[in-house]
């Protein structure tokens, strides 16, 4: 049932300004076939988690813990083995379609490259497959799509090309990193539709986003991340109907579709994290123990976990 399990994961970046504690003792399971949303704001470490799974982090990172997948710890595999997994079993749909596509290669070529590499098909066959893929996304391949260069496509289309590249080899886990960032309402809906079709094919997806509305539309479960750790984990409906953590509640209230009510204070710097519960400086319900100790995950409802002392009966 569990496809991937990040266990006690810690990732610290060693920089000139200090140690950036991007991920701290994080624990997360992705189940087979589910779409798990990873919600968090800029600077909470969610993209770092995605990159950790893909082992695409820069050299100045200190990683501890394990990422268990298919009986192996991804953090301990050799680079060569990892390369065989990347793109084939675990695929990344990166942020920023404008910079993630090679501007001097035609779009069709970039898709078929992935296919050639992992499925061993020859160029002609790979192009065929690429064309089919693009067709299934409504990108008319003979006219546009295949024979276009990235700069000739709109943002929405570029994003869908990236999606096509991601699923070209039928991976069992897709990590989609902010796929709707900066997109307009209508284009966003189209990309969400494309993503929805992916998940219905029984493959797991880790959807990393700060857009709660998109998560609501696509995810089975949602994990809310704050300052390097998961603070709430529950099925989607549960998160939206009965959010437990004060941060989650604050986040929902600040949505434009709700009250647009701000959460007081600012996100903590990852170099200078507060003691105890990382949210306590901004929390309206802060009690003494919150300042000193780091709360555990507590199951408040079925399959609904909250990391907050408010629910700690002991």
């Amino acid at each position, binding site marked *: 049932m569990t496809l991937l399990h990040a266990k006690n994961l810690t990732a610290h970046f060693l920089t000139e300004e200090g140690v950036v504690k991007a991920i701290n003792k994080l624990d997360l399971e992705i189940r087979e076939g589910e779409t798990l949303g990873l919600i968090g704001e800029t600077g909470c470490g969610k993209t770092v988690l995605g990159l950790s799974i893909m082992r695409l982090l820069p050299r100045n990172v200190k990683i501890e813990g394990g990422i268990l997948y298919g009986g192996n710890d991804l953090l301990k595999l050799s680079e060569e083995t990892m390369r065989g997994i990347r793109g084939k079993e675990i695929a990344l749909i990166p942020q920023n379609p404008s910079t993630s596509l090679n501007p001097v290669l035609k779009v069709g070529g970039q898709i078929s490259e992935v296919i050639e590499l992992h499925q061993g098909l020859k160029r002609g066959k790979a192009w065929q497959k690429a064309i089919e893929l693009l067709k299934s996304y409504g990108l008319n391949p003979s006219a546009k799509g295949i024979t276009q260069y990235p700069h000739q496509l709109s943002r929405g289309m570029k994003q869908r090309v990236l999606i096509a590249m991601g699923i070209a080899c039928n991976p069992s886990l897709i990590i989609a990193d902010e796929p709707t960032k900066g997109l307009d*309402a209508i284009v966003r809906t189209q990309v969400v539709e494309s993503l929805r079709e992916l998940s219905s094919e029984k493959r797991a997806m880790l959807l990393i986003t700060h857009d*709660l509305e998109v998560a609501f539309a696509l995810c089975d479960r949602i994990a809310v991340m704050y300052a390097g750790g998961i603070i709430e984990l529950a099925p989607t409906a549960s998160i939206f109907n009965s959010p437990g953590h004060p941060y989650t509640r604050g*986040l929902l209230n*600040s949505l434009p579709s709700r009250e647009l009510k701000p959460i007081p204070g600012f996100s903590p710097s990852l170099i200078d994290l507060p003691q105890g519960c990382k949210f306590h400086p901004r929390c309206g319900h802060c009690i003494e123990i919150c300042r000193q100790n780091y709360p555990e995950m507590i199951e408040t409802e079925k399959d609904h976990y909250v990391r907050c002392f408010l629910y700690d009966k002991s």
Partner: protein
Amino acid sequence: MIKADNLSKIFYSGIFKKCYTKAVDNVSFEIEKGQTFGLVGESGCGKSTLGRLLLRLIEPTAGKVFFNGMNLFDIRKKELQRLRPKMQIIFQNPESSLNPRMKVYDSIAEPLRIHKVIRSREEEKERISNLIEMINLNPEHLGRYPHELSGGEIQRVVMARILTMTPEFLVADEPTSSLDVSVQAQILALMKELQHTLGFGCLFISHDLNLVRHMSDRIAVMYLGKFVEVANTGEIFKGAVHPYTQALLSVTLSSNSVSEEQRMTVEGEVASQVNPSSGCKFYPRCPRAEEICLELEPSLQDMGNGHLAACHLSDPG
């Protein structure tokens, strides 16, 4: 306070300047003091261009813009420079909104210095620290460079800079699109508060209808350079008439939304604006299009109660 009259902007491109794009096509509207006018539309519909035209940051092809009765396109450069501090703009990308080589303090002080408003360094320092308090910014940031600040902090600095000259009109061009959800809420709450205190008029540009709903008194929906529907905020959400507005409304994702069936699908991409065809610009994507839509371009008609719409299917007459 601000009045746009038949404003148009055409961009020419191509080798012999044969291709043209009507970024803004014959737009007219008014904004009162203390009022927020929301402008909604997809990327490329011309809303940013319109915002810049109102401040004369670009020259129009046709039309007039009146600021407190004066036609901005008629006055001399010197006069315009004098007026500029009164009409300001906030941009979408915090990263490029401030000069990366200037300290935050100097960026904020610049308008004070060039317009020779302040007589001494002390006065300048005092003015700026008051402003910093007003926008809730950590005074430590004053000595830093823009790349050391977060997106939300930069937008606050931009606002402080604008406030140094007590503006009467503000164009907010997607000011929070690149910011996180909770930072967005903070910045917009701040904007609302400042507007309440200082009473400036505002053109709030966004592609997010939900945001515009919270911020505006009156909303205009823009498509390919034209206003297709204009009404008071409540009216737009209760009784939108134009198919494009309806599509935008249904497509606005909401965890509060009722059902899937209500969702009106809009196919395709925004049509190219280069060398546009005749008839209604929305025709290729409109689910309710009829023959007349292809032949004749609809104009904005008043449906009563200040609610305007440009659609043959909703013609009152």
